[in-house]
């Protein structure tokens, strides 16, 4: 197990290096340049001076090696736009994104798991059809549209919830205020995955329900609920964990569209702005954190397999 872990970590290191090279090449070669060089008031001399100060007058390879050197010493550089260390900005945005994503994930699981199991237990029933129709809607509807509709309904028309942001500015921070701001984006972010997870839960539960041991359990007279929860769901979880695990990096990366639509101060909206402004250190920093999260969550999923299915071993 230890050897397996060490191997995986080494792989992760190589992966991060490759990703950083590719992303660095892409962002620096993209048309346009850092927005900070494009203020309309700046003359060519000021632009040249700013470029030199940011080290952008150096060959790309030199720029990359400098960046890598910084990163190795734990420094992600300073954001061109905000003038604040990238690590500090990510440090402030990451908890916001984790909060939103975790709320969305909880919503997803709370709705999708029961829905999937129920529609698998009574396939082709009215309930099943209703769940299928709803999940299809959830998968098809674009996030920004759902977001806007919810804002129009709950904020503009009914006035129940704030349309965006994370707290009421000028009021002392409170949990309730946070919850009100969290409600709409969490529902929107959760709804897309809800559909996905419900579909997977339904199909994998259906598959398990056809297994011999389920028939045996039923023959023994085990109540149907116990069959479903203890025998079927436990085994169906393997697929579900994979699907949910694939979503985990989004916990860290944030949802660009949802965060932007709701002006949620997180990693997703940060990444969008950084990309538009060609804030190279910011883009690289975000990429690094998200890549690390992808690697970590896939490792986590592989380890969860062992716990769920004792037949899987990594020696």
């Amino acid at each position, binding site marked *: 197990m230890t050897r397996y872990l060490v191997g995986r970590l080494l792989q992760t290191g190589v992966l991060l290096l490759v990703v950083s090279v590719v992303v660095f090449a892409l962002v620096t070669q993209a048309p346009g340049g850092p927005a*900070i060089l494009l203020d309309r008031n700046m003359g060519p001399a000021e632009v040249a001076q700013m470029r030199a100060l940011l080290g952008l007058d150096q060959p790309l390879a030199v720029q990359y090696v400098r960046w890598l050197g910084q990163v190795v010493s734990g420094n992600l550089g300073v954001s061109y736009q905000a003038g604040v260390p990238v690590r500090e900005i990510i440090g402030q945005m990451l908890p916001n994104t984790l909060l939103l994503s975790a709320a969305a994930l909880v919503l997803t699981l709370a709705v999708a798991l029961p829905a999937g199991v129920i529609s698998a237990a009574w396939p082709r029933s009215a309930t099943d059809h209703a769940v299928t129709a709803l999940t299809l809607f959830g998968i098809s509807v674009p996030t920004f549209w759902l977001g806007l509709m919810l804002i129009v309904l709950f904020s503009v028309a009914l006035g129940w919830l704030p349309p965006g942001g994370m707290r009421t500015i*000028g009021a002392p921070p409170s949990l309730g205020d946070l919850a009100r701001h969290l409600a709409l984006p969490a529902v929107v972010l959760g709804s897309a995955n809800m559909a996905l997870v419900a579909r997977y839960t339904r199909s994998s539960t259906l598959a398990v329900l056809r297994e011999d041991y389920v028939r045996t359990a039923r023959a023994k007279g085990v109540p149907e609920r116990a069959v479903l929860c203890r025998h079927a769901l436990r085994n169906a979880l393997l697929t579900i964990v994979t699907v949910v695990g694939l979503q985990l990096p989004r916990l860290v990366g944030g949802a660009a569209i949802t965060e932007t639509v709701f002006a949620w101060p997180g990693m997703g909206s940060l990444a969008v702005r950084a990309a538009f402004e060609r804030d190279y250190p910011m883009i690289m920093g975000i990429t690094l954190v998200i890549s690390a999260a992808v690697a970590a969550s896939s490792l986590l999923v592989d380890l969860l397999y062992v716990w769920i299915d004792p037949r899987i071993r990594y020696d």
Partner: protein
Amino acid sequence: MRAEIGRGVRAAVSLVVALVLAGGAAERAAAQGSAGATFSLPLIDNARMWPIVGGLPNILVNKVLYSTLVKYDPKNWTPVGDLAERWTVGDDRLTWTFALRRNVTWHDGKPFTARDVKFTIERLWLNPQVPFFQRANLQDIGRVDAVDDFTVRVVTKVPFATLPVMLGYLANILPEHILGGYSVEQLRNPVDFLRNPVGTGPFRFGESVLGSHVRLVAYDRYFGGRPRLDAIVFRVVADVEQQLAQLQTGQLDLMIIEPHQVPAVQRMANVQIVDALQVNYTFLGFNHKAEPFGDRKVRQALSYAIDRKAVLEKIYGGKGRLATGPINPLVGWAYTDAVDHYRYDPALAQRLLDEAGWTKGPDGIRRKAGQPLKFTLDFDRGNPVREQTAVVAQKYWRDVGADVELRVSEFNSLLSRIRARPNPLQAWVLWYITPPEADLLAYYHSQGTLNEFGYGNAEVDQLLEKGRATFDQPERARLYQQAQRLIAADAPVVYLVYPAEIQALSARIQGWVPMGYRDALTHMLGVSAAR
């Protein structure tokens, strides 16, 4: 076991409901209390409160947090005192003397003096090691002497008649008593100072939450008296639909809208629309170094080919007036409309192109020496006015025999190409916001640093040089009026519209000055909000 889970879920649900309801109470309390006298407006990104670097979010916040030596009178856009009370220029036309206000304090309570002005200009603006984004506008300043605590002498290298105007344009004064000991490295990006920036504006720094907002609160000891508002909040809201929702629900008090959004905003009971004036113009730019734009007749023809009146009515929703040249009518002393207006005349456009040797082929496209009249018009994605302008221009130009290809790109990418030398583009849709001045040297002088058109006219060059060095206002006006006539005749670009900035302003706001919001933010002292 299941019952336990059930209890847990019920408890969690009731906790969430309770929290949500309690939160509503907090928000209502905030709305009735201090937030009632708060003015909120959106930023598209975090602001850096360091007026040495540019970018719109920074500029907006810095307008309120800091002061300038002069600012602009809302009535006629001429410079009036801000930190300076009055100023004179000596007979040598090089030595300016500014008398400073005596009752100004920095937000930390320390007095503002001539040393702050000297420090800001010499150590920051003119320091070649500090990347000041406005240096091109102020580089003719030679040195600054603090005559006494409240008198500053500014000596320019050459006669520089526009100095007061330029000092009012994004040139904030910074505190010597804090920054004086900083190294050059620190002055480039003073991270510590920016955690608690200190200015002399009517609002002082309150809090900054990255990605969320900047909150400035009324400064009780502001030299003009305490502002009527308690606070100004700049909220980071990049998405326009979210801005509209926040405007409608009262989280925002101001946003800038596009003409097509006017009907929707007019339906909001709590919002008024302000057509604010701004020193600007929109245009279709040509690269004179690229064929066929080196030929004046072709440029004139392309100007006559466009029905700009229809463009103003249909695309700008009538909000603005037809542009006659690069000087905005708000610069009243210098503006003249006694120039060629290029009224829509497709027949004349056709004739001019014929005269220039471009004859129509069977496909309707003109040719000269076997080469078709074909070029690319670049514009940026996402702005409906500029997108529609490009499409309409393509159609008008096609009508007179030009084969125009449209190319859309992100603004960032478009601007970096326009500013490359040599400019790789042929034609493009753009606009300028300029200081309220007639001085066009940077844009229309053949050696101008921002002359991306590659325009050159020796006579115009001379007039612009003379204009900068002439102090007699009627004489300056005469020079710039002559320059406007020559520029209009040359049709270096197609001048489209002097657009109004369409502001959607909360109806509860009073005392707002109807200038473009960059400048309106320097007049926040008398603005109030009904509770």
